[in-house]
């Protein structure tokens, strides 16, 4: 069980006020707050051993390289991934683009199907659409049911046609919180076609529940540093190293080469082949510290804490007249990102009044327009919870909704 009262002291920002009220931060699905331990790790790099990595023989360069590679090792352990397959990117979006521009053109062509779902974040949709124009495969979508789950009957039907060469699916929805049965979907895809690969969007699942890349059946797993207590500017692509070895480079430049002549270049071994130029050194070291912090809490404890909170939150909100909670209501099958609607009110109005009360929620389409459309909406209000949130925050959200309803109350019903 998490000792939330104690761990909150690790997050300096939680002491601040917003519009004269204590901050209630419910937007961790967009960006999580940063503990002092991560700030110290970033600060330590800049104040004691700031140097470029993998170059130079001086002490600072060696220390920086050791810390950077240590962080890679910690991330690999955290994801139960092979360290040779862990590539630092600038964000999860770049990790998807790396796969789209490196793996897809040399492995897919006309007649192949790239299967995604209607639940995906735009980062797991747009790169495939862009590369489709160059390569000419087909993109098919697994639809979402009314209660925010994937329609697995349609999934089975599409996979059964034998054309799916790549499945790209999120492990946890950033809009409605649904946890998808990624492992069984991966197994099904491979049973039909053994050369198929599975790309898992772990941006929401990795920060909030234990991750085991092999158990997920993932060939590629994408994650984001700033959603898991780490700094912005760093993301992760974890891949099976043998796949990376057969893939052409994505970005060219320094660091990723073995030799360069005027005639051409040969490339470094993996994962360095995919880290062109100076990587996000301080950010990766900070991410390593975030992983240490989360491991210290225990990811089973993190998941149990959030399951309790989201259960209490859904119970509180469904008891308020005029409020609809989107997605599954059973906390056992969902994460702690939750979209809701208040009858007759636009999310931007809800978000503004909530902000006045010190409650930070997200209003908009959450970079997942196909999913939001399936809810019959153009935008939703989203509250998302993390390790530092408490039952008091759930109460503040419920109170904020009542205040918002009252503020706009008396609107003529048409």
């Amino acid at each position, binding site marked *: 069980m998490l000792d939330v009262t104690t761990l909150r002291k690790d997050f300096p920002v939680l002491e601040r006020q917003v*519009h004269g009220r204590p901050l209630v931060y419910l937007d961790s699905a967009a960006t999580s707050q940063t503990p002092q331990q991560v700030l110290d790790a970033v600060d330590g790099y800049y104040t004691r051993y700031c140097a470029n990595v993998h170059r130079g023989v001086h002490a600072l360069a060696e220390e920086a390289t050791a810390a950077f590679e240590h962080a890679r090792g910690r991330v690999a352990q955290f994801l139960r991934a092979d360290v040779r397959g862990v590539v630092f990117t600038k964000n999860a979006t770049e990790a998807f683009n790396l796969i789209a521009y490196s793996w897809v053109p040399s492995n897919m062509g006309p007649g192949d199907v790239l299967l995604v779902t209607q639940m995906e974040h735009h980062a797991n949709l747009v790169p495939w659409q862009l590369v489709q124009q160059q390569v000419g495969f087909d993109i098919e979508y697994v639809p979402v049911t009314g209660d925010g789950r994937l329609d697995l009957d349609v999934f089975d039907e599409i996979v059964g046609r034998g054309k799916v060469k790549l499945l790209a699916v999120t492990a946890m929805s950033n809009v409605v919180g649904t946890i998808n049965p990624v492992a069984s979907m991966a197994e099904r895809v491979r049973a039909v076609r053994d050369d198929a690969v599975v790309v898992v969007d772990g941006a929401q699942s990795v920060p909030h529940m234990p991750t085991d890349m092999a158990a997920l059946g993932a060939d590629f797993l994408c994650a984001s540093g700033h959603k898991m207590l780490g700094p912005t500017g760093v993301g992760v692509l974890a891949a099976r190293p043998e796949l990376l070895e057969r893939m052409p480079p994505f970005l060219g430049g320094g660091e990723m080469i073995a030799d360069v002549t005027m005639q051409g270049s040969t490339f470094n071994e993996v994962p360095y082949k995919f880290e062109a130029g100076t990587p996000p050194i301080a950010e990766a070291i900070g991410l390593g510290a975030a992983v240490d912090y989360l491991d210290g809490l225990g990811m089973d404890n993190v998941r149990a804490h959030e399951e309790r909170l989201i259960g209490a939150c859904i119970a509180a909100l469904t008891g308020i007249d005029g409020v609809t909670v989107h997605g599954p209501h059973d906390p056992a099958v969902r994460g702690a990102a939750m979209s809701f609607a208040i009858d007759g009110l*636009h999310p*931007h*109005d809800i978000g*503004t*009044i909530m*902000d*006045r009360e010190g409650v930070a929620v997200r*209003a*908009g*389409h959450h970079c997942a327009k196909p999913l939001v459309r399936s809810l019959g*909406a*153009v*935008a939703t209000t989203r509250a998302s919870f993390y390790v530092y949130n408490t039952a008091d925050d759930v109460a503040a959200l419920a109170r904020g909704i009542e205040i918002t309803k009252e*503020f*706009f109350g*008396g*609107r*003529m019903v*048409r």
Partner: protein
Amino acid sequence: MTEDLYHDIILDHYRAPRNRAPELENADVRVHHNNPLCGDELDLRLRVDNGEVPVIDAVVYDGEGCSISMASASAMTEAVIGRELSDAEDLARDFRAMMHGEPVGREDDLLDGIAFSGVAKFPVRVKCALLGWMALRDAIATFEQGADSNRVTHEETPL
């Protein structure tokens, strides 16, 4: 600061909209404006008294959107009905200037529209307040070109 955004007059137009209707008898023009990034949808219908100097005889709006966009459209209708087309366009330009924090020349003519001056402090909401006025200008332009309908999608910075 929130009070600058949700002025009492704005809330009044949101709760009790003026000239909000799905149809307008003998309308000359219908325009539909939407902003896909925040999901606002606005229908505007215009009827022109086409005498020697064309005058706005009636204007109604309908749609879905945040309180600022719907209330601003409501206040706009009251400010422009009975005005010559060119005069209404001039007033729309004045409202736009106000939304960009510039001095307002026709404060009194904007009627309740003046209550939206505080929205200028909330850059992401300015486009909401402008939606109805942009639709009006488009409806007038459409009428002057001899057409009877138009659709416009506003691409704006995502929130």
